[in-house]
């Protein structure tokens, strides 16, 4: 039994840490920061004005979650009596890899939040509780081996994110973003649940392995069960496509990303997407891993290929035309979903190599995108966020360190050496080519040229343009927490970019645990 607790320690650490955080928030000094609500009542926010210490505590909690994931990884989860929680939670190296990435991403986001919330006067402790519990949901999503757990975990993660967006209650944009994201997110969840219900109806199973076994046992001829499985799968995929914001189910993403407080945006772009890909790969390979469903004929690969091509192309084209950097990064994250889906497609022929490539890509992408948003945070201050390209003009001289960090992360997102993004892209493209999906790979490569254009635009504005004299510009903020998040992220991006061997091998081992 104690083994089991050790095996589940990433989840438990973060979960109980979250409770601890709530206690710290409630029992700490009363807020020194009161505001008046419209009807004159004094509104006291729990944990207000203490975002630095709470943020630090949340970061410690999440990083210890990452550490315990590593610990369980090294201890070999298979020996830890995990069959007790199977199939609800599959504690294997696949899920531990994801819980590691998710905890690191969450920890970086809370670090960003610690600096951001105070600077922009929304320093409220709930943010950190929400991040921590959303991360619990995300980790559980990575662990989930049963549709039931998938839903509970997915909703835990999503509800937290909806609220994190709406946290800035005075801002109409944040309210709108929260509303849009909430509506479309719940709609997607409902569609996915209907798909899951159909799968249950056809197979009588909710655990992924059981569904997979049932599908494998289906006869060749068209039967009611086959049709129900296919329709259920389609509805599930549509729901997942919403969560990973693949075109044409991406409408919510740019608005939600732009309206949300930037630390939330980075959490959405990194952790939510990573967790969604974790569960997507597991569902596709375990439940729909039957060769008949992994074919171009009737299975999921053509759907994924369409989503991938659409996501890359449309998002890249639109991203190039944005005037807001935050929105550009939102579209860029959609296009990255496209590259990742390309790797998912390749899993039809090479499950292990392709899923390893997707996992590696996700690790690099998470860190780079959080770093990019973090650098964007650092470029603004005191209610004036740096959002547009014009705000970045001359940052290379106003705040060289922020500009250098931003440049590094943007280069990583563009997939150029010596960064993590480069190896991620290389690995995904290699998997695609190995799976003989040449045209998909060529489309991807052409897209990365288009992508390079708008990433370079950031460099151009930071280093080559000057702000218009007299125009209101965003003053770079000072925050040791944001800076430390950037230092960690930059170190990781460069380390993975120069010596990717260790992480590559981890991804390969984790992917092997999936099948």
């Amino acid at each position, binding site marked *: 039994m104690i083994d089991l607790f050790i095996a589940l320690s990433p989840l438990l650490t973060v979960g109980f840490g979250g409770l601890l955080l709530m206690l710290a928030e409630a029992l700490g000094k009363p807020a020194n920061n009161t505001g008046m609500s419209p009807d004159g009542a004094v509104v006291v926010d729990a944990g207000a004005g203490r975002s630095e210490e709470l943020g630090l505590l949340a970061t410690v909690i999440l990083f210890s979650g990452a550490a315990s994931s590593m610990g369980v990884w090294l201890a070999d989860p298979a020996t830890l009596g995990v069959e007790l929680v199977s199939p609800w939670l599959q504690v294997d190296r696949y899920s531990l890899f994801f819980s590691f990435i998710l905890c690191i991403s969450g920890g970086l986001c809370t670090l960003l939040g610690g600096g951001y919330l105070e600077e922009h006067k929304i320093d409220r402790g709930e943010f950190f509780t929400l991040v921590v519990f959303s991360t619990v949901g995300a980790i559980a999503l990575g662990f989930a081996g049963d549709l039931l757990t998938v839903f509970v975990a997915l909703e835990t993660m999503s509800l937290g994110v909806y609220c994190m967006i709406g946290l800035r209650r005075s801002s109409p944009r944040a309210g709108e973003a929260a509303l849009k994201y909430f509506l479309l997110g719940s709609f997607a969840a409902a569609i996915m649940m209907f798909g899951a219900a159909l799968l249950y109806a056809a197979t009588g199973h909710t655990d992924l392995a059981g569904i997979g076994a049932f599908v494998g046992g289906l006869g060749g001829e068209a039967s009611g069960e086959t049709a129900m499985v296919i329709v259920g799968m389609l509805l599930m995929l549509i729901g997942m496509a919403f969560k990973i914001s693949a075109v044409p189910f991406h409408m919510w993403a740019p608005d939600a990303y732009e309206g949300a407080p930037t630390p939330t945006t980075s959490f959405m772009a990194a952790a939510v997407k990573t967790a969604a890909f974790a569960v997507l790969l597991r569902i596709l390979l375990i439940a729909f891993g039957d060769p008949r469903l992994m074919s171009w004929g009737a299975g999921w690969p053509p759907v994924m290929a369409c989503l991938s091509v659409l996501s890359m192309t449309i998002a890249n084209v639109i991203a190039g035309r944005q005037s807001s950097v935050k929105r550009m990064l939102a579209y860029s994250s959609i296009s990255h979903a496209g590259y990742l889906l390309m790797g998912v497609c390749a899993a039809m022929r090479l499950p292990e190599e392709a899923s390893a490539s997707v996992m590696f890509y996700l690790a690099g992408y998470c860190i780079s995108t959080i770093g990019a948003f973090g650098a964007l945070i650092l470029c603004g201050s005191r209610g004036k966020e740096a959002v547009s390209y014009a705000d970045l003009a001359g940052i290379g001289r106003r705040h060289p360190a922020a500009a250098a960090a931003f440049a590094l992360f943007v280069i990583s997102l563009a997939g150029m*050496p010596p960064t993590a993004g480069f190896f991620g892209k290389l690995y995904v493209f290699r998997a695609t080519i190995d799976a003989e999906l040449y045209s998909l790979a060529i489309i991807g490569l052409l897209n990365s040229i288009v992508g390079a254009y708008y990433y370079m635009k950031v460099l*151009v504005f930071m280093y080559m343009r000057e702000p218009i004299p007299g125009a209101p510009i965003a003053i770079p903020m000072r925050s040791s927490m944001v800076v430390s998040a950037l230092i960690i992220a930059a170190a990781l991006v460069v380390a993975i970019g120069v*010596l990717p061997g260790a992480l590559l091998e981890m991804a*390969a081992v984790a992917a092997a645990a999936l099948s």
Partner: protein
Amino acid sequence: MNALRDAGIEMIPYLIAFVVGYLMPWRKEWFERFAVGSVAALSVAFVLGLWPDKAVEVAETRPEEWGHLLNLIVFLPLIAAIAVVFLPRQSPKLLKQFTMVVLGVDFLASLALLGVPMSEGWHFQYVTEWVPSLGIRYHVAIDGISVWLVLLSTLSTPIALHVSFGSIKKRTKELCFAFLMLHGAMMGAFVSLDLFLFFVFWELMLVPMILIIGIWGGVEKIKASYKFFLYTMAGSMMMLAAILYMAWVFHSIEGYWTFDYLALKRLVLPEDAAFWCFAGFALAFLIKVPMFPFHTWLPDAHVQAPTGGSIILAAVLLKLGTYGYIRFCMGMFEGPAWEASATLAGVAVAGGIFYGALCAWKQSDIKRLVAYSSVAHLGFVMLGLFSGTHAGVSGAIVQMINHGISTGALFLLVGVIYDRRHTRQIADFGGLAKVMPVYTALFVLVTMASVGVPGTNGFVGEFMVIMGTMVSDSLGRHATPAAVGASFGVILAALYMLSMVQRVFFGPLNNPKNEKLTDINSRELVAVAPLVALIFVFGLFPNILLSRMNDSVGATVRHLAEGRIAYEAHAGATTAKLRPKRGGPWEAGHPSPPQVADVAVALNAGADK
């Protein structure tokens, strides 16, 4: 006691990193310095801990060559670039001195490469594992071809930077960073024998170069840097696809991953695949050269770039395209390269030599004129390569070096008058010989070299290219027309260069603004002197170049012919095959299959136990 001593020895890298970090003149407080030092030590620990420990034995080590020399040449600038980030931007003098010292050391180190005769086979080879699970190795070596390009770069970069320090006063820190990074990346690209490593360095050059164009460039700098970036990116993406495809084919035949040039060179692909892979590589290199339809980025980039950037661009960066064509296109796709050479030679003559020359003639901007003359000169280089003969290829390489020297010098000299007059229009000048006699003399000299007057270096290369083209097998019946066309190109070059010189330096001094111009100063003279000296050295004693490259060129031409025969014997096949190992010095360092084919499988097997 012994254990203590060993531990002490192991601590040395960390201690050095800590001390260097601590001494960085960045912050004043001791604890900030301490933190920087600790971070430096930690990063060393990180690198040492993550580096795969399975070093590969090089097949044949030459006792007289120091294996780490190339590593030093490549990584000294790169590490220095990182160090520049931590130097204070408030003291430009320190930055300049630091950078110049690093580049000087790099140049001296590269001179040591001349210390050994460039006999058959790879020299100064160094191989180690980099990313074992993807089969990526760190494999560097030089031969008689790349040694000259390395030397050309180590010479050009300090000159370009010296010139830049004269004219650029703002943002010195970024300038030093960009130049060091660019230099290291170029060095790396010239010496890599692992396709992946080559690609990494190839991409690494991009960002510093666009920074150089975009930050310190002219009015249209941003457009020019976009253009440069997107063109290069487009080419390199296609090259990446081809590299990945070839690695995969090799894996499916041999069962292990490698990106090694020597291994992938052995692949004989079926016709379609070979053509598309060749096209992917050729596109990347021809854009970089640049050859006719893809040359449109070059005039913009040259005109907008600061003088130092133009020198680097002309002298070294373009050479990466031609070098890549020799090494990778001709080295790995002998069949398609042979088949395409007649067509491409036609393009090189008509689109490069003729069209470039005619465009140059029409220009009113001196720098633009020189840029188009580059297109014409590189047409010669490409023609020599397409000829596939010993004389043609040697001539092309000689011409590469010469173009680097003489066009670099031309850009430098154009920069000199631009700094004084802030215009480059030919019409704004006239009769400069009267006020700037030394400058005029130098300019005329360099023009002579560029035109290819006998006795200067330009003559040797062009002559050999034309000779080689004349007898070329690969061009077949197109050989003679191509050679004749190229000869006309030489005449055209004389026409446009000399008419420019005539209009700028001779005739009446009728623009009053030009009357006060000062002659070339000592800083500029120091920069241009080595180039002018080299013009004569290589013009009078071309054997310095030819003797060292002889064996390598011979091997290139020989392998090209052999590979074509293997390719034609394989015609009609639908699957790829692997040519047997040739053996001998040119395959020293060929990767061997790892103990267990797939690392993931190996690790899994370990996990199951």
